């Protein structure tokens, strides 16, 4: 019997500071020699650990189309995340995964997509966007609009991706910040307000769907905008932040009604979420 608690020792290839304040880094990991990379779905997560320090869950921030190297974007908030920030290339970090369900990529086929992320919750949406933009997949989706916001310009993640996406003519990118600084020439305002401004997105193929991940306040104010845009609860997919521990539905920590976010989630349709206890709406 394989042990679901035993991590695979991954090798740190690089570690990049994402934000001006240094609070968020992205580490890129490769599999040990002789271990085949696993397949995964954007939106899935993994438990990263340093033995002796601890273990914590992180969304996989890179596309499954490049499975050899996995990105994890880590905000430094506690003991484990601090140690993960200190990792240097060549060092080892434990990984258990992939865990959770991921975004429903099959069900999104043929649709116009609104990808809406706020702050640090953007990591798995970045994975999804790069997955959808991959030449082998781009034809499977209709229009793609990405709305991404951060509190200030210094907290914007994935600047290389944002530049690439802005230059593309097969998607729309809307980046907004709550508070501009001197050099900022882009949009200022909240994510829900920015979503209001993309009403021009036309339904091309099989209707629209929205993928949403961000802080609770962003989600609360974005959902009514999506309803105004005519999206039904079954067409809105939320990736929930939960305090997962075991990742395999045993430890009871991430229960939402009769479901566990670590196995049945972390991605839920709004329709499903509304059938669950009202703690996470």
């Amino acid at each position, binding site marked *: *019997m*394989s*042990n*679901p*608690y*035993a*991590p695979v*020792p991954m090798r740190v290839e690089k570690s990049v500071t994402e934000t001006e304040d240094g609070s968020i880094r992205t580490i890129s990991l490769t599999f040990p020699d002789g271990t085949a990379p696993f397949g995964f779905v954007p939106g899935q997560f993994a438990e990263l*650990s*340093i*033995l*002796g*320090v*601890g*273990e*914590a869950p992180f969304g996989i921030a890179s596309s499954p189309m490049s499975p050899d190297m996995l990105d994890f974007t880590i*905000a430094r*908030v*506690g003991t484990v*995340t601090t140690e993960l920030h200190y990792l240097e290339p060549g060092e080892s970090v*434990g990984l258990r995964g992939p865990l959770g369900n991921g975004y429903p990529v099959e069900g999104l086929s043929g649709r116009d997509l609104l990808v809406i992320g706020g702050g640090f919750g953007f990591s798995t949406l970045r994975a999804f966007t790069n997955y959808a933009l991959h030449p082998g997949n781009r034809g499977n989706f209709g229009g793609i609009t990405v709305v991404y916001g951060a509190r200030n310009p210094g907290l914007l993640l994935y600047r290389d991706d944002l530049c690439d996406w802005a230059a593309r003519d097969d998607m729309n990118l809307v980046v907004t910040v709550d508070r501009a600084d001197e050099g900022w020439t882009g949009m200022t305002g909240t994510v829900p307000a920015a979503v209001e401004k993309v009403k021009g997105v036309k339904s091309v193929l099989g209707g629209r769907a929205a993928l949403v991940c961000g*802080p*609770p306040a962003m989600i609360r104010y974005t959902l009514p905008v999506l309803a105004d845009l005519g999206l039904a609860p079954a067409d809105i997919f939320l990736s929930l*932040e*939960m*305090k997962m*521990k*075991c990742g*395999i*539905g*045993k*430890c*009871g*920590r*991430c*229960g939402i*009604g*009769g*479901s566990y976010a670590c*196995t049945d989630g972390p991605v839920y349709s709004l329709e499903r979420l509304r059938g669950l*206890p*009202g*703690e*996470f709406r």
Partner: protein
Amino acid sequence: MTDTIHGRESLVRLLEGILAMPGVTVYAPVAEGDGAAFDRVLSASEALLDSSGAVRPPRQILAPMTETLLAMEPGGSAVDSVPAPEPTILFGARPCDARAIVFLDRVYAGGDRIDPYYAARREALTILSIGCREPRATCFCTSTRGGPLSVEGSDILLEPSGEGWIVRIITERGASLVGRAGLGSSDGRVTDPAAFPQAGAPRDLSALRGRLEQAFDDPRWEALTAKCLGCGACTFLCPSCHCFDIVDAEEDGRIVRSRIWDSCQFKTFTRQASGHDPRPTGADRYRHRLMHKFSYCLESYGMPGCVGCGRCVEACPVNLDIRLLLDAFGGER
């Protein structure tokens, strides 16, 4: 062939017979403080066979309060520590304790991912339960689909009959133990459960579940749970609570990753790294415990997450009685 056990002395002899079997570990209720707990026994005299239920449930035999998952010697690589226990016999469980193990089986050994630590211990375990002659004031097993003679989870059930017990073999594993311990099989006589004192009028679980779900936003949760201290005694003494945390520590020169029991009644249980907590108040947490056991578990595991043993009722330092909350939110009896 012996099919009944006459009197307490015969029960002691049965335990002695089991203890004499080579290579087995035996757990039975033993004195602990003012009450009893399941612990390893080496002789029959240690066992409290007259106790009407141990304060601490047998859960720790299968899911210890602290358990090493992985260990790393200095300079070495991590090795997992899945146990390889010798055959283990739980002697003198109550039918509710055995039903709680059925629930734990569904959590730890069900679904796509089997918990190998639990599964290894469970595979080695044989459960001999003793039916209950008298319900305690805190018992409500009949409201959770159980009863004083419930066989669910037991390999052998000793059904009280007169001054003795009828040996009822439930599983092959039970038959094997009875064979080795020198008891014959039952002749098929079964005690009439109706002849037994019941633990209060049963509640209708399906109706209860429906009403509880409707009462989710009931404003009375706060007032009715205001005295809860959040101490978690109810969850730590619960035979079917299964939540745990995973922590790393240094222990005897080794680095170990362990899991330790955790409680949904603790403030940090769902608090996220950002500081956001989807369940921020004591009332939220109490409601979660109740709803989990009487609504969510019915959906995820097909049985309630409560076996009605009443330990949480007895242990609560502020006398918050789960039965009163069930009746307040779950409607009429």
